[in-house]
């Protein structure tokens, strides 16, 4: 069974540009989460999808971040326009409803550098 995949693994962009990160969850997992780790700080929750619906987006930092999950499959996280403080590693995780608690399986992350 394929794990959670993320693309790209690294992205270097300039301030003001747009970047789109993609996450493919494990097949059949209804829950999809985005997290971010800024250098030297904790991994922070961004948002949670259940299928195609946003269940909790309380962690999204501002309206420059837009997440979508088309058809309840893969998800994209777009940052537009990117700022220096957006640099960090963006993790995606997925889980299958039914566990107690659901075990979240993480992808390898996308390292974003904004210059």
């Amino acid at each position, binding site marked *: 069974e394929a794990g959670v995949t993320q693309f790209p693994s690294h992205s270097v962009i300039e301030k003001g540009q747009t970047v789109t990160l993609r996450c493919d969850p494990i097949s059949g997992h209804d829950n999809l989460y985005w*997290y971010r780790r800024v250098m030297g700080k904790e991994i922070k929750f961004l948002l949670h999808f259940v299928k195609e619906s946003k*269940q909790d987006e309380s962690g999204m930092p501002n309206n420059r971040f837009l997440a979508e999950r088309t058809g309840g499959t893969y998800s994209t996280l777009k940052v537009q326009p990117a700022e220096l403080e957006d640099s960090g590693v963006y993790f995606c995780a997925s889980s299958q409803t039914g566990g107690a608690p659901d075990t979240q399986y*993480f*992808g*390898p992350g996308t390292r974003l550098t904004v210059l």
Partner: protein
Amino acid sequence: AQTVTQSQPEMSVQEAETVTLSCTYDTSENNYYLFWYKQPPSRQMILVIRQEAYKQQNATENRFSVNFQKAAKSFSLKISDSQLGDTAMYFCAFMKFTNYGGSQGNLIFGKGTKLSVKP
């Protein structure tokens, strides 16, 4: 708001020895879950062990065990017979029960402890 604190940024241990990583948390919730995740240098984070707060018995997974002290809000991880492959970043995480799912929800992480196992 819940917080998770890992007070040891880095630790090292000799191969085959035992090491304990500490984690404390703060919450007013009564029902919640606690986790230890491991992120080896290859970056994929994997679940090591989990504990339900309502269970008094400490969770164990092979060489990994926890010491869960609910009143003290402490959740330490003990690794016995350390192996070179245990070298990784270890994250303690908290998940509260949610109204919409019960067992789903976002994880709240500590800053992590970098563990090095030396031959």
